[in-house]
């Protein structure tokens, strides 16, 4: 065990993967000499050389398209998209190619690419360095979507993603890249995809969160203990595939649900969870499902602290749910 930040967990996973398997190659903008704008790939160029740590031209479709070609050959490319906000030029490659190659070829051409992308607000990034658009990708069949919230999970989930067989969009909550260090197992630490984590056990209400909203929800839950409200916090970790069983188990126990995400509410990932609970856990529910989310506006700059779900907003939502019935 070593205490690391989340970004160090990412870096360690990349290094471990590259050491273990010569087919793992990295590509992206500023990832080589510069070590990545967030330093996720720090030191890797020196260790593994420019054939495996490729600084690319500034073109996301080229990055993803080239990674797709490498994966078709049998390599395990890990591409960095500098910010999730800049992924859209590659949307065609992701939706039309990456996510569909295995299916459309009857399994002849699996295409295992990992796309790493820092996402989310809280860093004074304004419209184009803050967005959470995971729901766009979670709705595409054939693409896994993974979001860690701790340094240990960043390492363990990324290693699992790199050695998975399917394309993975790996979303990194950049707001907590450095702010919340934690113990990280050394060596080849893997966390299976598709499993949620019970971040905190409780009996009165289930709180579902992922990424940078996990520590916010955690703080809210802790604050409510004094009032006798014992909230259970589930860190989804994997949006696709979703660990439905873990969610249903929790709600069957608590009878209440609060969903927290940064992304806008309308058609957000929380809507899928709410629908799931309506379909499969309605008779366990004692109160309406509540969502605490970003607003249905573009991501603001000066007012981002009011836009993002805060400890206070999450606390009030939990209280409201518990008091409702």
């Amino acid at each position, binding site marked *: 065990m070593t205490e690391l930040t989340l970004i160090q967990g990412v870096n360690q996973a990349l290094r471990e993967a590259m050491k273990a398997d010569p087919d793992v190659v990295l590509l992206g903008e500023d990832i080589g000499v510069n070590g990545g704008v967030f330093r996720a790939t720090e030191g890797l160029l020196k260790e593994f050389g420019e054939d495996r740590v490729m600084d690319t031209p500034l073109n996301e479709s080229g990055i993803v398209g080239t990674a797709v070609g490498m994966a078709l050959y049998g390599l395990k490319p890990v591409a960095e998209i500098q910010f999730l906000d800049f992924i859209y030029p590659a949307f065609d490659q992701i939706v*039309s190619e990456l996510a569909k190659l295995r299916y459309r070829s009857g399994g002849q051409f699996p295409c295992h690419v990992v796309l790493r992308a820092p996402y989310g607000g809280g860093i004074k990034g304004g419209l184009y360095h803050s967005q959470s658009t995971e729901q766009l990708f979670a709705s595409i069949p054939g693409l896994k979507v993974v979001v860690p919230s701790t340094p240990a999970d960043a390492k363990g989930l990324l290693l699992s993603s790199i050695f998975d067989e399917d394309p993975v969009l790996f979303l990194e909550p950049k707001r907590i890249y450095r702010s919340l260090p934690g113990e990280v197992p050394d060596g080849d630490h893997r966390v299976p995809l598709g499993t949620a984590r019970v971040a905190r056990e409780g009996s009165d209400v289930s709180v579902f969160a992922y990424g940078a909203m996990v520590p916010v929800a955690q703080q809210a839950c802790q604050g409510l203990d004094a009032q006798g409200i014992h909230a259970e916090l589930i860190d989804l970790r994997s949006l696709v595939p979703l660990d439905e069983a873990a969610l249903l188990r929790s709600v069957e126990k608590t009878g209440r649900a609060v969903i927290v995400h940064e992304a806008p509410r309308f058609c957000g990932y929380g809507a899928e969870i709410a629908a799931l609970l309506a379909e499969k856990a309605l008779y366990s529910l004692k109160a309406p499902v509540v969502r605490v989310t970003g607003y249905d506006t573009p991501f603001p700059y000066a007012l981002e602290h009011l836009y993002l779900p805060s400890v206070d907003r999450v606390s009030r939502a939990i209280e409201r749910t518990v008091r409702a019935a």
Partner: protein
Amino acid sequence: MARPSGPPRESPLSVQAVPVTSGRAPEGLTAADRKRMLRVMLLSRALDERGMTLQRQGRIGFYVPVEGQEGAQVGCAVALDPKDWLCPGYRETAVALSRGIPLRQLLSQLYGDRADLCQGRQMPNHFAFREFRFVSASSPIGTQIPHAVGLALAARLKGEKVVSVAFFGDGATSSNDFHSGMNFAGVYRAPVIFFCQNNQWAISLPRSKQTRSETLAQKAEAYGFSGLQVDGNDVEAVYAAVKEARARAIAGGGPTLIEAVTYRMGPHTTSDDPRRYRSAEELALWKSRDPVERLKETLVREHALTEEEFDQFLEAARAEVAAAIQEVEPLPPPDPGTLFDDVFARRTPQLEEQRAAFLAELPGSGGRKE
């Protein structure tokens, strides 16, 4: 071969006036080789004849004809090594045939039947043959171009002396991924060949409205590598151009853009009526440059082929297609349960649940509902 800096042209049609070969017969291409190439071209044409008809008869859903581009496709495919990677578009049937992909497998894809390696998941002509390094084609234009770059870089990293070839048309040179792929290939000097079949029409848009560039080949110059224009209806000239590009790539000389000037003699697909946008005169002009006829005439002139032999080849091609259709047509569609396979390497719990519900609701399943 004319370099892009050659004499200015008035219209795409006048390109045939540009000298396209150095006058040398391509090395290593015997009369027997060219006869084999002619037979593949005829097989492709025979498949086109029947493919169009099968669609009109409602026996297959769609068809994309190659007619007119057989010379470019076969000339290119024959110049490659069987281990070279192919990143096709959806009009590369003659490339597939040239690589030796069995006709039956192509037909199963057209029918989307149980023997289709793609499990009936794609529209006709969107082939995929892993065993032949013939990568799965999609419908978006140009997306395969960066894939060829990635394949080439991967092969180089693993020390394999092969090239990859991206197949696309004049329309694709306007796509985002043409730029992405060309630029990446130039930067990394990837062993890749960009094989552009300029067939003059992107559905209804003529080549002259696709780009103001004098040639498509000259676009390579801006990316820092060679581009050349070749008469795409001259199978030998195409062969020579691809051989040269391949040798350069293998030697570490980087990518090449080849603009094979040709013509789509048929409609874009069975859903298209080209009479809406182009003249009968233009079609007649290009029919006079038919690559099949040209190769035939060359071989006849060299006394390597007789008219009777040619007719036999054509009949043999038609018979082969007819026999394959007979063999494939009775095959049933894919098993319904396969709908949920290959989304991921393994079905997720959600897919398992949907599959179970789907199968329970299928007619003949006993009608058991959840």
